[in-house]
């Protein structure tokens, strides 16, 4: 019974990791690759750690597995957000299927606002 549970959990985990690796190879765009890999790989490692927690009948191993899973869930989105922001600011383009870029709209509206403020300052003789 225990073996069956371990087999099911580790199969789901390794399949999620396989899907993540296929995604990073086949997706057309950096941002899609980032989004598909982080989620699926975290899920896969979480399943494998659940299998390890079942396999060892020991409280310390279960605590360790939970700590690793918690740490992965905590850090993977932070790292993905930082590398995605870096990619956007260094000018990595989205692919042709992207229909919405809210950051770009915000940036351009910020720029126009700044230009308007500068214009105001010039007319008031502050600069």
């Amino acid at each position: 019974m225990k073996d069956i549970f371990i087999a099911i959990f580790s199969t789901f985990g390794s399949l999620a990791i396989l899907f993540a690796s296929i995604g990073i190879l086949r997706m057309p765009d950096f941002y899609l690759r980032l989004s598909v890999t982080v989620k699926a790989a975290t899920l896969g490692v979480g399943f494998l750690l659940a299998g390890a927690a079942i396999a060892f009948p020991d409280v310390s191993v279960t605590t360790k597995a939970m700590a690793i899973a918690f740490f992965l869930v905590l850090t993977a989105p932070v790292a993905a957000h930082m590398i995605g922001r870096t990619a956007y600011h260094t000018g990595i383009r989205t692919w042709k299927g992207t229909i919405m870029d809210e950051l770009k709209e915000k940036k351009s509206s910020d720029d126009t606002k700044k230009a308007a403020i500068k214009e105001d300052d010039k007319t008031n003789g502050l600069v």
Partner: protein
Amino acid sequence: MTLDLYFDYVIFPILTISVILIFIRLFKGPEVVDRVIALDLIITVGTALITAYSIRSGQAIFLDVAMILALIAFLGTIAFSFYLDKKG
């Protein structure tokens, strides 16, 4: 079919194929950031491999190594994004 044979013939091959597919992206990757996330994913899959090997061999002590590896993956990605940001 015992659990050990299942791990040897199903789980480890699947994880190995995943590492090979990510390696193709690491070599192809058109930009630096693609390579950074490929490296990050390889280390995450390495964590999964160590966990699977820990189940297969019955040695719970390997999970400590998995924890350290997960820490280092996070630090590596943060450092890469920091320096790429500085470069502009």
